[in-house]
């Protein structure tokens, strides 16, 4: 799960390392996703997210499709 300068850099890195392409999103979307995913992590009343809660976060950020389906 890495940051790159652009999609062109992602493609070159995948080719050079023989990796299959996954999914690429903007850093802006990542920031929103990270906030939704992690913002309760230090809350005194923290409870673990259920699988469905996490899937709902992905769905809410437009991360749908088989690649983003949690087990």
């Amino acid at each position, binding site marked *: *799960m890495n*940051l790159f300068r652009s999609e062109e850099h992602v493609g*070159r890195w995948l080719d050079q390392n023989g990796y299959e392409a*996954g999914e690429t*999103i903007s850093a802006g979307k990542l*920031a929103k996703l990270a906030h939704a995913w992690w913002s309760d*992590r230090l809350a005194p009343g923290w409870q673990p997210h259920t699988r469905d809660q996490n899937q709902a976060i992905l769905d809410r950020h437009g991360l749908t499709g088989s690649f*983003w*389906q949690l087990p």
Partner: protein
Amino acid sequence: MDDHDVQIRNHIYRRFVELGRAPTFTELKDELGDGVEPALRRLHDAHALVLESDRTEIRMANPFSAVPTPYRVEAGGGSWYGNCAWDAFGIPAALHVEGHVSSACPDCGEPIEIDICDERPVPDEHVFHVAVPAAHWWDDIVFT
């Protein structure tokens, strides 16, 4: 993972923030007693944190990494490593402060410096690639 395990987990996270690193197993035993060892294993099995292969020392308390990574984060007067870019962006979110992520493009090595302000990256010009489908993130979380 019961309520007592969650309390231990919350203590570990508090200490990670305070120390700027993971608390060691010895420190946790001193602070929490002998019951910490089986609790750590239950938390690991529940994916509430990740232990090193020795099953005692902490490797990840996501989004925080216990080992140096390419994702250094400064936030709220402290600094930590994120396990990946997602986690790096998550550290300011978890702390509810603005932050700064320092990394480098894995392709060309060019430094990447991003401020996280009000849930937005500045500059907003980079991209984030996920190699492993979500169904398999926990198959090998260190690789993911």
